[in-house]
């Protein structure tokens, strides 16, 4: 059964179509990786999945609620079942790590402070930061900040966990540790995981299914093996890491041609 359904999603910025009629079903309990290059529309899709933007048309149904048309109260209710770890970690710099993790619990539950403290410690221990609760985000390394943001995303035991570029800016070892953490969290907390990334190694390690975005449309949606076997030229180019010839386009060639024929170069 689908926990997230994206139907005919169209998003435009200033007349430019960024997402062009996307359809996607994310099944409960699976790890769906949204793969794509820079500018493919991954972050825009993610913002629409989280209800941070309203699309021009189409719908995003999360747990049976269309978050593009629902009331703010319904949107809040849906969001309580989603945990998000942003690309920049987005921890509150004025709060300690444990206060960051405790924030959703303090806001949405009436648990006693001692229970919240215990819950926070358990979440921090699960991400390997049990000793770092008293530190401020600026005292943590990039990888630790990402893990702290995962702990915060897990605070309310969400049904859906969303990661925006979890490996961005991390070295391969820390990135692999984070992949392990995603797999571990999914196994332990039994949730649906949606990961937005452009890192191939990470995508193929953690995904149950992969949806490949290109210029605002899905080139392919399928299992890891199906994606690997795809013969779509754009998908192959992405998987085989073949660069575009950006230096030999018509525009660049005509610019150099004009420059070489200018009086300063050839008097």
């Amino acid at each position, binding site marked *: 059964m689908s926990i997230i359904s994206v139907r005919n999603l169209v998003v435009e910025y200033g007349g430019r179509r960024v997402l062009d009629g996307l359809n996607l079903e994310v099944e409960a309990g699976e790890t769906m990786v949204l793969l794509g290059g820079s500018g493919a529309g991954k972050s825009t899709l993610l*913002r629409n999945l989280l209800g941070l933007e309203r699309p021009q048309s189409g719908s995003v149904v999360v747990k049976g609620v269309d978050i593009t048309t629902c009331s703010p109260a319904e949107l809040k209710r849906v*969001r309580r079942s989603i945990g998000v770890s*942003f*690309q920049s970690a987005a*921890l509150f710099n004025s709060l300690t790590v444990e206060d960051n993790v405790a924030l959703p619990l*303090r*806001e*949405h539950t009436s648990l006693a402070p001692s229970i919240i403290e215990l819950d926070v410690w358990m979440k921090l221990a699960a991400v390997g930061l049990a000793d770092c609760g008293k530190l401020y985000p600026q005292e943590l390394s990039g990888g630790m900040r990402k893990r702290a943001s995962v702990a915060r995303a897990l605070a309310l035991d969400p049904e859906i966990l969303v990661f925006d570029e979890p490996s961005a800016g991390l070295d391969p070892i820390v990135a692999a540790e984070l992949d392990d953490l995603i797999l571990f969290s999914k196994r332990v907390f039994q949730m649906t995981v949606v990961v937005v990334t452009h890192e191939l190694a990470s995508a193929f390690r953690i995904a149950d299914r992969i949806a490949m975005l290109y210029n605002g449309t899905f080139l392919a949606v399928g299992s890891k093996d199906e994606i690997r076997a795809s013969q779509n030229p754009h998908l192959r180019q992405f998987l085989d890491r073949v660069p575009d010839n950006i230096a030999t386009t018509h525009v660049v060639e005509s610019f150099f041609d004009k420059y070489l024929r200018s009086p300063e170069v050839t008097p």
Partner: protein
Amino acid sequence: MAKFVESVGRDTLKRLDYVGGLSIGLWDAVRALRTTLPLTGNRYRWKASIVQMLQIGVDAIPMVGLMAMCCGFILAMQGGSELRRYGAMSLVIDLVAIGFTREIGPLLAAIAVSGRSGSAISAEIGTMMVSEEIDTLKVMAIDPIEFVVAPKLLAALITIPCLTVVCNVFGIFAGWIFMFFSTHLGLKLYVHEVFDSLVLRDVVSGFIKSIAFAAIIVLVGCMEGFSVRGGPEAVGRSTTAAVVKSTFLVIVADMFFTAIFYFTGKH
């Protein structure tokens, strides 16, 4: 000519749009105020409000006090130099007392807070926008107006009238220093004369003004912060805009309030 009229119309609509936005923001923030109250609201918000009160109010006392002393002394000297010619030095007391309680006290406190805290509020929220912290609040189903704006508004609504009282006391005290050195007037008699010259309406009008100024400073700061898009440069621009716009709007509002009190008062 048509272009000129067009541009004037466009700019007027833009300003009206801004004031409309402020009004909507004020309504949302006032509705969110109940969440910051000590007994009925969220205790963490109340704690955040106290922190804001210390930053907006208590930390500003030395600066506001010194500014008020300087202004009180200036007002007494300027008034004294003219009134001495007519043998009406005693009217300096009325001038300083009424001038401060009705006008200079609220205005000086508002301008000081606008420069100190209006800019800080805008920079804080702007940075939160850039670092995705506001998006994080939204996806955690926490209303940014309740979490960020309401504690600041409550703090300003309490502390700016208090700072106005501080301003009045220091300004009127500076008036006595001038009177002491120019006419050897004792403090007890001076205080008696001050209370004789003031009526309750003077104090109340000053309070009403300071409450309105508090709302303007916080809302403009927050609105400029929430409008930040891009990077650190945009945060800097929003900070400057917050100070300029809030100071301008405080003076405009002051004129309106003074006109209302003037036309509704006894002559």
